């Protein structure tokens, strides 16, 4: 049951004269089309004092443009029977909709209007309203949730002042407050040109016809200079970082984060496979030791963030009642040390690879998810064919590669530790 190259999606790659990259993946198995526009800008491009701006800006892109009224974007897509959303991350911001195939043109019109004609639609009132919405998003998804501030605390500890990955995408409250209309205009001019975007279509369309329509809607939008991307470097000589925060929770949770291979590096698939091996499935190293045998953890998750530059490898465990954070951390580190010392069994790797390919196939079955996968491969790796190559790349991971990557990534100098502990014990 070795991982093999088991999918082969047809793929066309084009670039318009204005720099817009276009990826077409025709598939007529459902009468749908997924349209995805990814801009190569994210929270890492924010200047200090304006954290959260890329995400607030994403909200504003749903507030209408020169030819699309406020709330029009949602309304038109829903009226056509489609779904839509947008998300912001460290390295990119994306906007996407899945529509009945006969409404492709509607999607192109809406995406082209916000790329080419955004500024006339934006007002102070819309900015103020969405600022309030985003502040409530921060409250709902982070501040008023158990362990909700953990990831931003890990980032603060793991990166030095001024590092582009040091702050959370949602941003800090006071910075969200500080955003002005002038910031909005400037950000749009800097980062939302066609030459900083990738447009992906997956679904039931005829490629040459679709390309012609894309040219019609987007071809007239001018390219413009894009600021130099920030330098995102691996913090070195930083040593192990530790933090402890208190929260309204019943039990402690421990976060171990190691600086790791980014989505761009050849070791990425190996690190990702390692995370499945250590934490996915009840027989995985962490679950077996901490949840089943020692019963010190209620839940464990191990995962990698596929960032463009410095990768992040996380192991997160929630304690059982009566187990303190130090004890839990010691148990977690013992699992990692044992793994590094003893190496792995062949069947562990085979299982991890089978779990990876099941997860991959699950990410590629719906057009919208496949478009998302393709856009990430193109924008962060500059490699759209990763869509088809991912299976074989994961299939090439062998025992020695996993052991080597464990040795290099699971290293004190790359480690940040966070303990979230209950308020009551203070």
């Amino acid at each position, binding site marked *: 049951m070795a991982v093999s190259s088991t999918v082969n999606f047809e793929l066309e790659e084009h670039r318009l004269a204005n720099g817009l990259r276009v990826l077409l993946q025709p598939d007529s198995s459902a009468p749908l089309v997924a349209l995805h526009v990814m801009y190569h800008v994210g929270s890492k491009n924010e200047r200090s004092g304006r954290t959260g701006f890329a995400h607030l800006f994403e909200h504003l892109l749903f507030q209408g443009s020169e030819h699309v009224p406020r709330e029009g974007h949602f309304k038109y897509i829903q009226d*056509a029977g*489609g779904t839509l959303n947008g998300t912001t991350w460290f390295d990119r911001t994306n906007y996407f909709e899945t529509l009945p195939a006969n409404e492709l043109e509607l999607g192109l019109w809406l995406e082209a209007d916000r790329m080419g004609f955004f500024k006339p639609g934006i007002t102070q009132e819309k900015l103020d309203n969405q600022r309030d919405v985003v502040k409530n998003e921060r*409250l709902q998804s982070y501040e008023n949730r158990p362990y909700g501030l953990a990831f931003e605390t890990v980032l603060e500890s793991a990166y030095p002042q001024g590092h582009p990955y040091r702050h959370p995408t949602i941003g800090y409250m006071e910075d969200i407050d500080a955003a002005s209309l002038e910031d909005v205009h400037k950000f749009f001019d800097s980062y939302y040109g066609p030459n900083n975007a990738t447009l992906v279509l997956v679904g039931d369309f005829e490629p040459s016809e679709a390309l012609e329509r894309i040219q019609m809607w987007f071809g007239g939008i001018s390219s413009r200079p894009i600021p130099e991307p920030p330098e995102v470097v691996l913090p070195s000589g930083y040593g192990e970082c530790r933090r402890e925060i208190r929260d309204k929770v*019943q039990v402690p949770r421990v976060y171990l984060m190691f600086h790791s291979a980014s989505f761009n590096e050849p070791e990425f698939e190996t690190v990702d496979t390692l995370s499945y091996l250590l934490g996915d499935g009840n027989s*995985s190293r962490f679950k077996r030791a901490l949840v089943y045998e020692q019963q010190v953890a209620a839940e464990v998750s191990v995962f990698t963030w596929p960032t463009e530059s410095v990768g992040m490898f996380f192991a997160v465990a929630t304690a059982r009642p009566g187990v303190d954070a130090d004890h839990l951390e010691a148990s977690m580190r013992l699992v990692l040390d044992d793994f590094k010392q003893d190496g792995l069994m062949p069947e562990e790797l085979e299982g991890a*690879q*089978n779990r990876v390919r099941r997860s991959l196939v699950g990410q590629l079955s719906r057009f919208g998810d496949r478009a998302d996968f393709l856009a990430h491969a193109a924008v962060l790796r500059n490699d759209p064919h990763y869509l088809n190559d991912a299976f074989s790349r994961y299939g090439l991971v062998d025992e020695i590669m996993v052991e080597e990557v464990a040795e290099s990534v699971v290293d004190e100098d790359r480690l940040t530790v966070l303990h979230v502990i209950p308020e009551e014990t203070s």
Partner: protein
Amino acid sequence: MGVDRTRRPPPSTPRRLRLPEIEGVTLSNNLRVEFVPRREVPEVSLRLILESGAAAEPPDQAGLSELTTRLLTEGTADRDALHMARWLDRLGASYSASSGYSVTTISMHLFSDVLVDAIKFLATTVTQAEFPENEVKRVRSERADEIDRERDEPSMVAGQALISELYEDGLYGRPVGGTAESIPLIERRDVCDFYGNWYVPDGALLIACGDIERGPLIEAVEAHLCKWQGVSQRVQAPPDPPRKPGRILLADRPGSPQAEIRVGTIGVPYGTPNHHAIIVANAILGGLFNSRINMNLREEKGWTYGARSSFGFRRGAGPFVVHTAVESGVTAQAFQEILGEIKTMRKELVTEDELDLAKHALTLSLPLQFESARQITSKIAQQRIYDLSEEYWEVYRNRIEEVTAEQVREVCETYLARDRMTLLAVTDAESVLEPLSELGTVDLV
């Protein structure tokens, strides 16, 4: 540039929606198998639906059904829990079992080349589980801790507090996963009895969709599930609960910057004659992004990240709930706005534009709802669990399109009476008590 950007481009000719053609076979032990081959990607979704769930457990053993599902993979006579875990993890398949009110669902998602072994694994869990004493103790204590941790999550606290107010001791008032009181009292013999009584092929349904072929699928199911024996009992829908006057409830979460709020009442079961009018009414009130409640609280006021409403259709009358989280300072006003939107729906006809938007969103989205193998097995499960007619989806579009503005108003009038609406907030009690009291008597829960 040759394009007219000033208006919405018209759609081209619609493609025909092909609803999945379900093939079926019933084994000699009465296990029903339904399947839909779809070859686009090498994946398979399996769902086994068993008549079971919280409705099948004694009321003082809340959580017995859920605990049983969690123990299915924890050992057989000749394979211990670790052996089972290694088997599943080596297949790379996902396996999740969960209890609802009237059924238990076991779902698997897998790469198609492990289908036969995955069916063997599934069969082993439903026919050979042995529930070793030490594993029962472990899983029971894990579940008890989990219940404790649920208190950390404001949305969980709000959801549970609302249904226990609406349904009290009735089936839909009980948490399916059990309570801190009920879980520790469940013993191995209770689990074994429950498994013996309810994990039977008669009345069960195995649904498969994806990269499958009829012959090999049936052969694998026959090979591993035909010896499974037992006669089912149908899980009854709970009796219609009494309708009570609404109350205002406040659960204290000191220092909370937001209020998790609910407005709810007892709704309706699946099979009411005005089913489609209720769906359209909810889409206009709170079922879509562009619904009235979300437009008001989010896009006009900026008080929330989002607000939605839903009718929980079940075998019995599930709840109608508006749910959102708002800044604590506007808790009372948010309730008033939500109640105002409900009142308008009851008193005035919705506009033609709103009616059209809701109908289009509900019907033109059908291809998106039947896109993947997992969605299709889920739709088939829904159709069978709730006894929806064979042509439910074929006629869905026409039924929705026939709904009138007056029917929308009528269902709101009938089901969303103000005096039966319960308002609930989970937040810092001290800071909202006074403004909330202006809406009526506030009870702390």
